[in-house]
């Protein structure tokens, strides 16, 4: 059967741009199986930003890589699920078709700018490469476009002929963003783009991402462990724990009407600038070993509200309202609520 | 048109008759006898009614064919001997010990001090120049100027040279020289052409009168020859010849087996077996006059002691050495004289000291040896095996031996008369047919006297023998010298070496000689059907 290289792009602003349905991704080692992502679902409309929040090891990066079908094989196996992007199931596309949508329909930027760029290619060439792959332009035009993109991210266009080692960390990340946005993708996946940068640069980069989002209307999946970042630029939030989404909803839902004990714990862990005397309240214990996940709720061993049935068997998602869902057995009891005093937008 | 055809026909028939005559002529050139053998005066009997291969390749190791430079006789490198037999001629030749005419057709001498030679008048050099007596004088002057070479040794005794006419030459030697003719027959005393050398200083010396012309040369690689069609002597059917130096013995074997080379001097012991078992090859051997011997440092405390030397002589196992070092190719002596096996006047009355461990122990007890370590210096390759075997044997009587292995140049330097650093050394002695060659080994002060043997009586006897014309007297003197040697044992004769020559079974015409001047100039190969 001949490989399909054409893509049908469905462009309906009302429909969801990205729909992740029951995605399960495991890493199959010789003696054990790492259950990185377990049956997660979320969706994103055109131009919206969703924040994927969680600790290290929660499965955020794996989930994000899956959207581009870039999970490193042969160990990484997508066990089940669908990822629908502009009407195409990414998981069922041929390599050639995937190459077409990567960089064009969906781009991804990664955590460490120091190693994300090819040290022996000029930054201009690296941006132009993306352009040449997806648009029918000649080398000169592609290079010009590269210079434009650099200007857009706040770097003088003349520097397109320079090499990555001649840029500082923050500027490298800006180059990475320039590469990602060179072909004007509809969706940008940003995997902890500011984690490796210092705070002032972090603010600059976030700012720039926000501006570009405004300018081009790009939808963003922002992966982060920093709730502050989420508050800055996300419209929607999905909290991940042990490969599952334990709470999802709009920014207001999750921040002001927190339902999941884990999310509550996250908010408690943030130091409060107004109350310098208060002590930090960490969540006791550690995230479970992803090769030995418990049968029932993975958070139960650390949860202050846990009871016997929590660990018993599989949980199912509970809808609180149209936008807000939570994965917690406690809400079987309609009177249950968390001990949070107020919303945390004010903290 | 018709006229042309007629003259063409006439021409053709004339040509045919002419060529028939020529070929008849060459058939008459070949003497009668068993094909492949040489007659008494050095002519080769060629097989008849067969076709011959035009182009032959002979290969060997670096002792023989590694030609660094061709300029006989200025260089004494042994390998040039091969070139010399092919490219040049000498005044006389030595065939089976007898002097036969070569460039000189006749000679006379009354007192072995004044010699007159009559030269051939039909000889032409490779460059077309006629050979005259002037060329002899020029060549010999050149030899006399090249100190340190074999050619110098052969001509240094000449006092005057005179050419009364183009084809006569007269020599006077400084002293009576009974071996003068033998020296002239030596391949290094070859005749060169003055005009050629004057014209081309680099390649002028390539010009000779011999059967083969040098047409190509790559230093340490190969030398290519083409047959000299205007050669004065017997013609040969081979047209082209190449002598190649092939470094590895296994590679030589492979070149033989795949037909790249048709003949080979010197393989390795293991390779010999394959070649000899292969029906496609023949092999010829000749026991040369070159012998392995052990030399003792007469000035050393331990080896200078006669009883120690006698002990060693009684312990040596020659058969083992021949087997181990030469794969069985070698001739052990039947008498106890230290002398070339083919050299004249060998004293066969001297008894051979056979291996006798008890006797050896007795001698050792009488000597001043107290268990010290004695060092044998030996060369690389199969030379060191002699030292190893001696070490094993000597251990049986309690003598501790240390072996010092070095390469050829090192060996030269270690065992010199002056400042001899080797207590014992395993060496090769190239004796010649003439007895006077012993001088270089026994005479006090001689460079090749590897035992630092200083016996004034022997020196006197040698001086006397060199000028004694009477053969019977000479023989007595040399036998006396050998007796003294056997009593004093500065050297122990091990065995005479054998040269093995492997050739394709269709190859013939190679004349191996006991004095190692093997002549391959007449090599031929019959084309197989």
């Amino acid at each position, binding site marked *: 059967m001949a490989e399909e290289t054409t893509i049908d792009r469905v462009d309906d602003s009302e429909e969801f741009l990205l729909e992740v349905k029951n995605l399960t991704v495991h890493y199959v080692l010789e003696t054990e199986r790492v259950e990185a992502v377990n049956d997660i679902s979320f969706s994103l409309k055109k131009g919206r930003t969703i924040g994927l929040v969680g600790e290290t090891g929660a499965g955020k990066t794996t989930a994000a890589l899956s959207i581009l079908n870039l999970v490193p094989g042969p160990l990484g196996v997508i066990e089940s699920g669908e990822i629908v992007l502009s009407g195409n199931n990414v998981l069922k596309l041929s390599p050639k078709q995937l190459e077409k949508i*990567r960089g064009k329909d969906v781009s991804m930027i990664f955590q460490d700018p120091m190693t994300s760029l090819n040290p022996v290619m000029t930054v201009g060439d690296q941006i132009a490469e993306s352009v040449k792959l*997806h648009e029918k332009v000649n080398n000169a035009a592609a290079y010009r476009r590269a210079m434009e993109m650099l200007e857009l991210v706040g770097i003088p266009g003349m520097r397109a002929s320079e090499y990555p080692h*001649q840029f500082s960390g923050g500027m490298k990340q800006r180059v990475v963003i320039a590469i990602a946005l060179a072909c004007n993708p509809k969706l940008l996946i940003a995997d902890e783009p500011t984690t490796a940068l210092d705070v002032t640069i972090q603010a600059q980069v976030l700012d720039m991402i926000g501006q570009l989002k405004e300018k081009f209307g790009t939808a963003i999946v922002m992966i982060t462990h920093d709730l502050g970042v989420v508050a800055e630029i996300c419209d929607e939030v999905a909290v991940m724990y042990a490969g599952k989404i334990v709470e999802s909803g709009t920014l207001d839902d999750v921040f002001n009407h927190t339902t999941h004990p884990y999310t509550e714990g996250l908010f408690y862990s943030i130091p409060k600038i107004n109350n310098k005397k208060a002590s930090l309240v960490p969540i006791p214990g550690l995230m479970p070993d992803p090769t030995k996940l418990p049968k029932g709720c993975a958070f139960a061993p650390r949860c202050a509200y846990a009871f016997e049935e929590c660990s018993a068997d599989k949980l199912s998602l509970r809808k609180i309202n149209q936008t807000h869902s939570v994965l917690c057995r406690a809400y079987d009891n309609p009177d249950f609520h968390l001990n949070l005093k107020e919303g945390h937008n004010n903290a | 048109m018709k006229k042309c055809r007629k003259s063409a026909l006439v021409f053709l028939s004339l040509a045919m008759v002419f060529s028939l005559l020529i070929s008849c002529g060459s058939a008459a050139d070949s003497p009668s006898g068993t094909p492949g053998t040489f007659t008494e005066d050095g002519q080769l009997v060629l097989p008849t009614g067969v076709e011959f291969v035009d182009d032959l390749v002979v290969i060997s190791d670096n002792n023989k064919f590694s030609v660094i430079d061709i300029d006989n006789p200025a260089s004494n490198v042994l390998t040039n001997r091969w070139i010399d037999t092919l490219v040049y001629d000498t005044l006389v030749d030595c065939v089976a010990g007898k002097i036969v005419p070569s460039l000189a057709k006749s000679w006379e001498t009354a007192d072995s001090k004044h010699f007159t030679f009559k030269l051939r008048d039909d000889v032409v050099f490779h460059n077309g120049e006629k050979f005259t007596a002037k060329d002899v004088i020029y060549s010999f002057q050149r030899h006399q100027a090249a*100190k340190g070479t074999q050619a110098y040794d052969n001509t240094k005794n000449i006092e005057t040279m005179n050419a009364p006419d183009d084809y006569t030459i007269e020599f006077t030697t400084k002293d009576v020289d009974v071996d003068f003719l033998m020296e002239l027959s030596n391949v290094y005393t070859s005749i060169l052409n003055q005009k050629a050398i004057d014209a081309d200083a680099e390649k002028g010396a390539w010009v000779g009168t011999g059967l083969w012309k040098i047409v190509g040369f790559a230093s340490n690689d190969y030398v290519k020859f083409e047959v000299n069609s205007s050669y004065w002597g017997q013609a040969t059917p081979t047209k082209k010849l190449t002598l190649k130096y092939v470094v590895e013995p296994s590679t030589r074997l*492979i070149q033989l087996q*795949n037909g790249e080379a048709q003949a080979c001097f010197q393989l390795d012991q293991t390779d010999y077996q394959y070649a000899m078992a292969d029906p496609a090859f023949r092999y010829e051997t000749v026991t040369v006059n070159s012998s392995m011997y052990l030399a003792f440092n007469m000035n050393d405390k331990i080896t200078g002691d006669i009883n120690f030397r006698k002990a060693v002589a009684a312990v040596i196992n020659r058969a083992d050495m021949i087997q181990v070092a030469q794969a069985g190719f070698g001739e052990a002596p039947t008498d106890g004289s230290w002398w070339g096996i083919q050299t004249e006047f060998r004293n066969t009355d001297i008894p051979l000291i056979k291996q006798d461990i008890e006797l050896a122990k007795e001698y050792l007890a009488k000597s001043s040896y107290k268990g010290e370590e004695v060092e044998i210096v030996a060369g690389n390759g199969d030379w060191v095996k002699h030292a190893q075997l001696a070490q094993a044997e000597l251990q049986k009587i309690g003598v501790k031996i240390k072996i010092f292995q070095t390469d050829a*140049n090192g060996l030269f*330097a270690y065992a010199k008369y002056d400042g001899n650093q080797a207590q014992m050394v395993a060496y090769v002695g190239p004796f010649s047919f003439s007895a006077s060659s012993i001088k*270089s080994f026994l005479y006090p002060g001689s460079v090749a006297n590897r035992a630092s043997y200083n016996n004034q009586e022997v020196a006197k006897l040698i001086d006397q023998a060199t000028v004694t014309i009477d053969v019977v007297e000479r023989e007595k003197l040399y036998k006396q010298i050998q007796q003294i040697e056997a009593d004093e044992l500065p050297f122990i004769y091990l065995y005479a070496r054998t040269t093995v020559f492997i050739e394709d079974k269709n190859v013939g015409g190679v004349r191996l000689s006991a004095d190692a001047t093997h002549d391959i100039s007449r090599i031929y190969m019959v084309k197989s059907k």
Partner: protein
Amino acid sequence: MLRYVLRRILWLIPVIICVSFIIYTLLSLAPGTIVDKMITDSTTQAELQEIMAKYDLDKPMVYRYAKYMWGLLQGDLGTSQITGSSVWQSFIARLPNTLWLALASLVIGVGLSLPLGILAAKYSSTIWDNLTTGFTLIGMSMPSFWLGLLLLRWFSLDFKIFPAGGNAGLKSFVLPAITSGLMLMAMVTRQTRSAMLEVLHSDYLRTARAKGVPEKSVIRVHALGNAWIPIITTIGNVLSRTLAGQAIVESVFSWPGIGRLTIEAVEQRDVTLACGCVILTSIIYVLLLLLVDIMYAVVDPRIRAQYQGTKKSKKAVMA
């Protein structure tokens, strides 16, 4: 860049001085001299002294060395004591043979090893990778002597395709080239594989894939482009060794190259020729290393910046 190259070339001078001194001393200390082969058994002591004087062997080593260095300073490598012809001529006559052999080995070696190494890295831990590793291990452990003889046995004797040595045209070139080429290939494959393995885990490959770069280009352009440095280093090393005279291959195949020439000069104690050969070989070696370093600059801009001095790169970072 030019200044860097010039500086490197200037280093040749101390190298030549050191090398010539070491070789001269070592050879002079070895027992025996060139004269030993130039005399007969009947040469008298007086004649021997005369001949030794001709080659200054009666004078101390320092004198001879000084004379040699003086000649060297004037660009004269001297004349070989045994042949009487110029050292330069002898070397140059043989150098093309070794050069051609080195070039052929390079083409065979690198031409085969790059794809092998890349594939081994790409399909690492599969049967293909294990086969390649096994093959390179054999290649590296196998003595070239043995391999050469094996090839001779098969292809020269059993199948009669190629001649067994010598230098008679293109055909006699093949087997020695394959022998040294295979040696080269074994080492470069290993190095390519390790270099690629390292690079294959790099983040910028992930970036490239996320851009939609086709997998083939990811490997060939992005991965290989960064793997060059260790590969070039290895090629430089092995090639230098090949060029310096594969004495063993030259011996097995009777290939008239400079390796054999040097050995023969040492055996003869021809100090001038041996010294000259070693000096010239060292020069070739040094120039090759320089070429390797220049290649680094070509493939890696970070190193290029280093060579160009700190001024330029400082300016860039400040911007």
